């Protein structure tokens, strides 16, 4: 290769640098091939698939009951949502009824999971900005409390396997609800605490304001969803536009970016979203009905009717879709995931070109990409 390049009159002032797959800022195993002019990025080539674990292939080779345990790993930070999308798709095909208590429990744990996911995002975002000590410890403190709550109902800290086809796995004890209430009561103060440290910080402001402006038309062209597009001012949240579950009965607002859709807006959107989620948890707790928790018997030979269904829910990262084609057996014929991170990551090159290296971390962090969600 070198001989070939030497014979041609290449420009000598550009440098190809390889970021990842092992790099502290790429949140795992993303690889970015950057072409740099000094410190300015001239060309970006994301290479993904370093964590391709063949989730879709597993989906058509395992029984539905087995596969339910696997899908938490599609997006490990929001396992409840992936479970929910899959359960929704299967329930659409099967036509089974979900008891109201299960619906409320689903919304409750999903909103809790949204908070825990955003908290982890906040920590890693600040690490990306260069605050290696100090800041990141605060969000993790609250996240541990949430994980303890999850552990109590699902038996696992991250891989819940809690939402099942037809309902949820088990009914929490009354004391658990009290603990959740305790958490929600003190959580707004905690958000104030983060905001006090981060939001007014001049260096954070300098590094995020006007950086990585995601244009509305570009975002729509790439199919960007979630807080990333709401930061650009497009009011698109499936909980409002295509309500599922019990969301029509709940009262909440969709936070939107106030400026032009820069990194700062995306940060602010997520902060406000955490407040809204905290609100939603309280509402779910207030309205929680009594009754059954599952409309379908959870057995190893779980089957659904033949047919195909597409369900989409609003995960912390955007529209998480699951397309299930069933032939009536205990295995799905084809499962296809529509992952928000996959679509949001595709827009990254257009944001990075012309920016210095330091902005890569801020922009990439603000899009909130989870690599197994990209690679499946």
């Amino acid at each position, binding site marked *: 290769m070198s001989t070939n390049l030497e014979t041609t009159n290449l420009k000598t002032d550009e440098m190809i640098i390889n970021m990842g797959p092992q790099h502290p800022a790429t949140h795992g195993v993303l690889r970015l091939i950057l072409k740099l002019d000094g410190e300015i990025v001239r060309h970006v080539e994301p290479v*993904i698939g370093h964590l391709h674990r*063949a989730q879709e292939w597993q989906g058509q080779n395992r029984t539905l009951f087995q596969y339910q345990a696997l899908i938490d790993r599609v997006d490990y930070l929001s396992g409840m949502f992936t479970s929910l999308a899959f359960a929704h798709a299967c329930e*659409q095909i099967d036509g089974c009824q979900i008891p109201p208590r299960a619906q409320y429990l689903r919304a409750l744990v999903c909103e809790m999971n949204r908070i825990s996911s955003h908290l982890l995002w906040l920590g890693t975002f600040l690490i990306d900005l260069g605050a290696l000590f100090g800041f990141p410890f605060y969000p993790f403190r609250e996240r541990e409390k949430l994980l303890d709550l999850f552990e109590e109902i699902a038996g696992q800290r991250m891989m819940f396997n809690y939402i099942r086809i037809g309902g949820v796995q088990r009914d929490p004890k009354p004391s658990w609800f009290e603990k959740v209430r305790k958490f929600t009561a003190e959580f707004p103060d905690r958000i104030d605490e983060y905001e006090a440290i981060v939001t007014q910080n001049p260096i954070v402001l300098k590094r995020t304001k006007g950086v990585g402006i995601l244009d509305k038309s570009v975002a729509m062209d790439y199919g960007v969803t979630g807080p990333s597009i709401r930061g650009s001012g497009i009011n698109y949240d499936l909980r409002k536009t295509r309500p599922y579950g019990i969301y029509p009965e709940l009262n909440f607002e969709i936070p939107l970016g106030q400026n032009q859709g820069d990194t700062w807006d995306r940060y602010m959107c997520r902060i406000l979203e955490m407040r809204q989620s905290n609100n939603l948890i309280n509402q779910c707790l207030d309205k929680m009905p009594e009754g059954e928790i599952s409309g379908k018997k959870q057995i190893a030979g779980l089957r659904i009717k033949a047919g*195909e269904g597409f369900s989409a829910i609003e995960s912390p990262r955007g529209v998480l879709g699951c397309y299930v*084609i069933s032939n009536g057996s205990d295995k799905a014929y084809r499962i296809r995931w529509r992952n928000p991170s996959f679509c949001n990551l595709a*827009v990254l090159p257009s944001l990075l070109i012309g920016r210095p290296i330091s902005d890569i971390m801020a922009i990439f962090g603000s899009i909130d990409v989870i690599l197994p969600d990209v690679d499946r």
Partner: protein
Amino acid sequence: MSQTDTNKPNETKEMELGKFGKFLKDNGIDSTRKDDSINVETIVISVKDLEPALRLLKTSSETKLNMLLTISGVDYTDRIDSIYHLWSYDHNDALVIKVELPKQSQANTDTVNLTSIANFWSAANWHERETYDLVGIRYLRHPYLRRILNPWDWEGHPLRRDYKQLVDALNDKNPHSFR
């Protein structure tokens, strides 16, 4: 592992044209409707109509299906479907477009060919690459049609029903150990 034909989902009957089918017919694009997805209009169109139909649906102010959710490829052993889920950022309509690509009609039996829409719809770029990688639909005129999830020198398309898993030193246990 290969599935037998009996496991294939049942083919459904054709239905009358829906809202979008009629809209496409008004603009000179033929389609047939199938009632497959739950509560969502599903139409099948031919290969040559795909690009104009999607262009029309994306840009027309009447439909404004400007959100390409996903492109999926499904291997039905005798044919491969390329399925487009279209939504809108502005309203609640949804449309599923299927393009059926029979395996026999293609000259090259390894991959089947289809027109790429990545040139006017950026969202399609990676989805098409992924579908090419996993299912093996070759999208013609794609700006950069390379494997995206698997290494670029990978052999075979894993989500084909007749895919034989590579067994080597990295992965030599019984491929069916869990089932």
